[in-house]
């Protein structure tokens, strides 16, 4: 079973839920794998004592133009849907904007003069860490200056999937491509939200996207307090399961901010995370998806 932990806005506590769920499940003796898919700001590894198992560069292909062979016909520019080829035929100038290139290979097929070949460009790394006693953590990390984290996220999920056990995906924030590519790989999506008007608005947007993708989802309210009746009412009305309610406690905020695993010292939280997992298993069909 693959569970994605996501949220519409950043900072609601996705990583908090991901690392503590991973920890709590492994403490119960379950086989569990964590993949940090927030490739623009990967943070999960810092919560554990880790040993690097492997680190792999992820490459994307970019065109290389042989100006001697180029006839300045402009077909490659016409084929490029991303405006990554800059051409001034009258001055015989042609350049590739590597950061705009998506590596689709269209220019290569467009060129009839054999003037285009390809080279690899690193867009990030996928690192696998051993977390002794708990399992394996796979981290997607986009290189700075790269536009899209999607290729690195996809590579990290593929690697994490090759390991046995329940897979937890710490998803990137938002509802656009990086989020979609992450949740597309999940059997169930946990949306972490906070009881503010912003939290509710972002939650509704995330739920709408997940409905379109046909992904079942439940909600964790983080930093809950007395004022979240509107949120609870919304969940009841929409028949969306409330999986867990994490109270607003300064000590939790402080310990998490210092890089501590809050569940490690709190049996009650550990049990709550395990309870959440059991609920999810029921929703996905008594673990029938389990590999």
């Amino acid at each position, binding site marked *: 079973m693959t569970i994605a932990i996501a949220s519409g*806005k950043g900072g609601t506590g996705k990583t908090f839920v991901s690392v503590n769920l991973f920890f709590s499940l492994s403490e119960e003796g379950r086989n569990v794998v964590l993949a940090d898919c927030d490739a623009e700001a990967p943070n999960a590894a810092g919560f554990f004592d880790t040993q690097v198992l492997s680190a792999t560069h992820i490459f994307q292909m970019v065109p290389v133009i042989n100006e001697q062979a180029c006839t300045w016909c402009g077909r490659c520019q016409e084929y490029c849907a991303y405006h990554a080829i800059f051409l001034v035929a009258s001055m015989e100038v042609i350049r590739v904007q590597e950061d705009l290139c998506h590596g689709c290979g269209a220019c290569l097929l467009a060129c009839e003069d054999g003037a285009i070949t390809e080279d690899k460009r690193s867009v990030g790394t996928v690192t696998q860490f051993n977390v002794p006693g708990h399992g394996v953590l796979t981290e997607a990390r986009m290189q700075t200056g790269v536009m899209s984290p999607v290729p690195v996220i996809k590579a990290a999920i593929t690697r994490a999937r090759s390991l046995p056990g329940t897979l937890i995906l710490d998803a990137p924030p938002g509802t656009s491509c990086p989020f979609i590519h992450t949740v597309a790989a999940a059997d169930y999506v946990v949306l972490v939200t906070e009881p503010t008007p*912003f939290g509710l608005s972002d939650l509704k947007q995330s739920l*709408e996207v997940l409905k379109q993708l046909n992904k079942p989802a439940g909600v964790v309210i983080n930093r809950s307090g007395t004022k979240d009746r509107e949120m609870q009412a919304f969940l009841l009305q929409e028949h969306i399961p409330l999986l867990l309610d994490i109270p607003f406690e300064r000590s939790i905020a402080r310990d998490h901010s210092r890089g501590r695993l809050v569940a490690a010292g709190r049996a009650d939280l550990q049990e709550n995370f395990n309870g959440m997992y059991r609920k999810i298993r029921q929703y996905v069909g008594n673990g029938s998806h389990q590999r």
Partner: protein
Amino acid sequence: MLETAVISGKGGTGKSSVSAALASLHERVVLADCDVDAANLYLLFRPDEESSESFCGGTKAVIDPDRCTGCLRCVALCRFGAIEPDGKVVSISEVSCDGCRLCARLCPEGAIRMVQQCDSRLVSGTFRYGELVYGRLAPGEENSGKLVGLIRDRARSLASRQGIGHILLDGPPGIGCPVISTISGTGRVLVVTEPSLSGLHDLQRAIAVCRSFGPEIQVVINKHDLNPEGSRKIIGWCGDNGLRVTARLPFDPLVVRAMSAGRTITEYAPDAPVSKKIRNLYDRLF
């Protein structure tokens, strides 16, 4: 016209709370919410006289199964793994399609066409401190950077039409395409960080991206008292790298309560220590 972008390497550092408070201290400002995935400032400021227009982002390939002969040329061409054999024809995954149109160009049967996705919106309206511009990216839509570019164009034209001197851009989280669109060509970037385990690391990545565009960079440490040691590390690193820490804001649950009440912190609790710090920040910036 001065453009100031507020960003943060990771989400949840309090970027929008800070931008909203800074906006509410202006008499007139153009506030541009560039977090097109999770636009929030309109909920707080409830602008009226909204103008709303649709925005066409990327295109997606769509197969006509009646014309498809199952030759699978498109499957071989697609580098995004978006096309799979499906019975005697193929199916194209909307999620995985990157919109490169190679399959549509080279399908021998002309069975694939590209469909534009036009569900995103660009919205602007008047709010209590000036003009608010924001975007709503349709679910799963590409080209968030392009929508941010349009938001910024609209913000500039509103500012010049109405003689407003300041544009405040509230950026999206992360360091990818929409963030790059938010900061490229702005005069000044305010990076809001927090002293969490990963705060410094995320800050470093955000600064690395900013530096390639050359704006003036200032750092704000939010919730600095939650982890004084972490804050000292951030200040030390900034000092070593020639960066100015313009403000340190204390953690205050009133900030969240203010948002829930639909007010900025400086409106809701003007005498709270955090509000005073934000006013100092405003005075130094504008």
